[in-house]
């Protein structure tokens, strides 16, 4: 226990020294220099335009001046807000405050780890389960040298169960160990600014235990992969196919290639050619103009399927006129004409 107290005390002193260092009070203040110079330039141009009687130009420049003043005012308001948000002098944590915060972390979390060499203070959450998806425990690791940096901390999955489509997403709101704070951003920043470490870790932990549906890197519904629309198997990001017609998600086994255009489709968006039986999309099938069944272009001739084409040919043969048949007989008298020749009359 004493060892732990000494480490916590040493860490508290180091953190307080970090807070008291020069960088802690070097607030970046951005004044609207560019906007102000722009305002002055526009004002000079307006004066010149009025002197020369260019009233149209003066009117247009006046509108630009109004817009530039709006920009300048917004930038000044932002600078003022930045100054007001940094009030360390009023509620700056003392070394004893920080020490008490660290001790309180041992009651709040399963595990607390102080690494004086790496300048990190870490806590371990319990195992997190969100909507029946087990995400495991997380370590919230703060590097106290970067209290003013963004990000100042990382969220490390200790028993990762990452999203199927992205192994860097270990939590709906954690990607590459970076936590998107969402609703908690302002409060977390305030806690870090005032070095209220207990508040900081509690806030991050509560965020980890909350799921913001609709604003996640990967929604929990798709955590284990997106199901194939046909067979229901989970598909990871690299193995997804899409039906080119209806957009449904497919696995490699269920995606069907159209034999005409080679695009991939689901089973509902392809049909077999009524002659060859191969699968085609609707764009690569045409109706036979006679029977109105669907065929691929290879199985149609002059808009007719083979069967209808043969029927048409046969019909054309039947419709041929008779002379066409006589001319086909071999040359010479017919047997009948020979038979009809009268017998020779004796003298």
């Amino acid at each position, binding site marked *: 226990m004493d060892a732990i107290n000494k480490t916590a005390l040493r860490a508290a002193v180091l953190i307080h020294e970090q807070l008291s260092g020069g960088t802690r009070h070097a607030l970046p203040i951005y004044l609207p220099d560019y906007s102000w110079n722009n305002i002055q330039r526009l004002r000079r141009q307006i004066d010149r335009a009025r002197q020369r009687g260019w009233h149209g130009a003066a009117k247009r420049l006046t509108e630009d001046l109004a817009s530039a003043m709006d920009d300048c005012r917004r930038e000044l308001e932002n600078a003022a807000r930045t100054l007001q948000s940094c*009030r360390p002098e009023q*509620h700056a944590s003392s070394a004893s405050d920080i020490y*008490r*915060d660290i001790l*309180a972390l041992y*009651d709040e979390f399963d595990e607390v780890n102080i690494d004086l060499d790496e300048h990190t203070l870490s806590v371990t959450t319990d195992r997190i389960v969100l909507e029946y998806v087990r995400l495991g425990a997380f370590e919230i690791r703060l590097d106290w040298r970067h209290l003013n940096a963004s990000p100042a901390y990382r969220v490390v999955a200790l028993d990762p169960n990452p999203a199927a489509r992205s192994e860097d997403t270990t939590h*709906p*709101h*954690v*990607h590459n160990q*970076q*936590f*998107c*704070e*969402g*609703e*908690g951003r*302002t*409060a*977390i*920043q*305030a*806690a870090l600014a*005032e070095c*209220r470490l*207990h*508040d900081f870790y*509690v*806030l991050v932990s*509560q*965020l*980890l*235990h*909350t*799921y*913001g549906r609709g*604003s*996640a*890197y990967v929604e929990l519904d798709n955590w284990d992969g997106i199901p194939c629309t046909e067979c229901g198997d989970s598909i990871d990001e690299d193995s997804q196919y899409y039906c080119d017609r209806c957009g449904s998600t497919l696995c490699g086994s269920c995606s069907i290639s159209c034999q005409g255009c080679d695009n991939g489709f689901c089973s509902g968006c392809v049909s077999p050619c009524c002659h060859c039986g191969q699968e085609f999309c609707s764009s690569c099938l045409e109706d036979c103009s006679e029977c109105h069944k669907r065929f691929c272009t290879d199985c149609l001739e002059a808009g007719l399927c083979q069967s209808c084409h043969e029927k048409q040919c046969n019909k054309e043969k039947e419709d041929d006129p008779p002379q066409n048949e006589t001319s086909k007989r071999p040359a010479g008298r017919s047997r009948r004409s020979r038979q009809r020749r009268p017998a020779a009359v004796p003298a």
Partner: protein
Amino acid sequence: MKILLINNDGAGFADYVEVAEGITVEKLFADQIPHGKPQDYLIRVNRQPVPANQALQEGDRVSLTPTKIEGAIA
């Protein structure tokens, strides 16, 4: 009497506020977050969980942290 109040449901800054002597945690919560339910918050006094009827003392540090805070996509 004066206490340090940290309302993490919002801007999250620490402010000294003047409260009535002997005010309970429950009453303070109702005054500060009138539309909230105590069960939806982690309430800590001097970094420790306390019963709702605990009376506050001068200089106490009270933090109110919602249990449901949603993250987002960066």
